[in-house]
């Protein structure tokens, strides 16, 4: 039982880190970020989160916030660059 709990927390951590990396790729990071948060919360079967689940939760939230912001910045940069072509 403890092993399964750890597996879920580990998956959360990996997905959280992946979400930060993928947040640069036009909002794709939102999916692993959401999954990281889900797995972190579902792995909590005691009063407190395990350290891996905590890491997954924090990195997942960071990925969730970063993905749309970086996506918007990317769109803005493309817009600015495409505008330069016409001038």
């Amino acid at each position, binding site marked *: *039982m403890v092993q399964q709990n750890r597996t879920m927390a580990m998956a959360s951590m990996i997905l959280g880190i992946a979400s930060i990396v993928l947040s640069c790729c036009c909002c794709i990071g*939102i*999916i692993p*970020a*959401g999954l990281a*948060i*889900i797995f972190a919360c579902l792995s909590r*079967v*005691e009063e407190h989160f395990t350290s891996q689940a905590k890491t997954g939760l924090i990195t997942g939230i960071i990925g969730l916030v970063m993905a749309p912001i970086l996506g918007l910045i990317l769109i803005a940069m493309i817009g600015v660059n495409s505008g330069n072509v016409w001038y």
Partner: protein
Amino acid sequence: MKTSRAELKMRARRSLLGNYGTMILAAIILAGISWAVSTVSQIGVMGGGAAGQVMDSLRSGDFSAAGVNINFSMNIPSYMYVILGLLGLISSWIIVLFAVGMNRMSLCVVREGRTEISQMFWAFKNRPARIILLQLLVYVLEFVSMVPVIVLSMAIVVSTAVSGADPNYEQLLFLILFLTGYVILIMIVYILIALNYGLVYYYMADHRDEGVFASLGKVHEMMKGNRMRYLVLQLSFIGWNLLSMLTLGIGSLWIMPYIRCTFAGFYLDLLPQAETIPPQWDGRTQNPWDGSAGF
């Protein structure tokens, strides 16, 4: 015994450890069956429409429409819509029977800490007629609630057809205001019904010998004094559903079993203590529901 919301959720998470695979497989099977049933019925209707068109062409001797220019979407005979409706009804019965089977699985998970995929077919083998009858009652209720809207719409159509004029501004405004008020009223009624009888599918999944009206009566009794708890528990999953949407539904594979097991736990919490532990419980392994050590 009134267990707190946080404790119910914690117990559901504990019970699900080691059972996610089975529950996810069941959810995928249910989704696959729903998709297959709807696709087969649509293909059947389209095929039936096309076949009818070919037959008409053969009878009339005009082969151009049959051979070259079959319009699959526009020339469906009217009786095919009746068949489509019946297929939709049958498919919804199949899906609700599977959903009751999944409730049975959730009950097994929270009670015994384990379940099997065969439990998904439990409702098909254990008096399925009562579940079908309950679903039929739901349809009748939905139809009855739509009657005023149908009558009013028909009255406006008939009155404009008789007078020969287009519907005027006052009529349209009245229709919009009526529909808005009526939809709000119906939503309140549906919420009240859900708060009173929301656990009936869990009850039927747990009590094979109870009929529809007996189950509804028992669930109504159980929900007395617990409706607000049930509502708050329902609302507490809004955030989870938003997370599920963010992951394009992938997260729901884990979230739906969690929600089902939490409500199964809530249902067990409302049962009298004597009914909570099933007689077949052998006591050799830890029962996650008793909340004692072991996790």
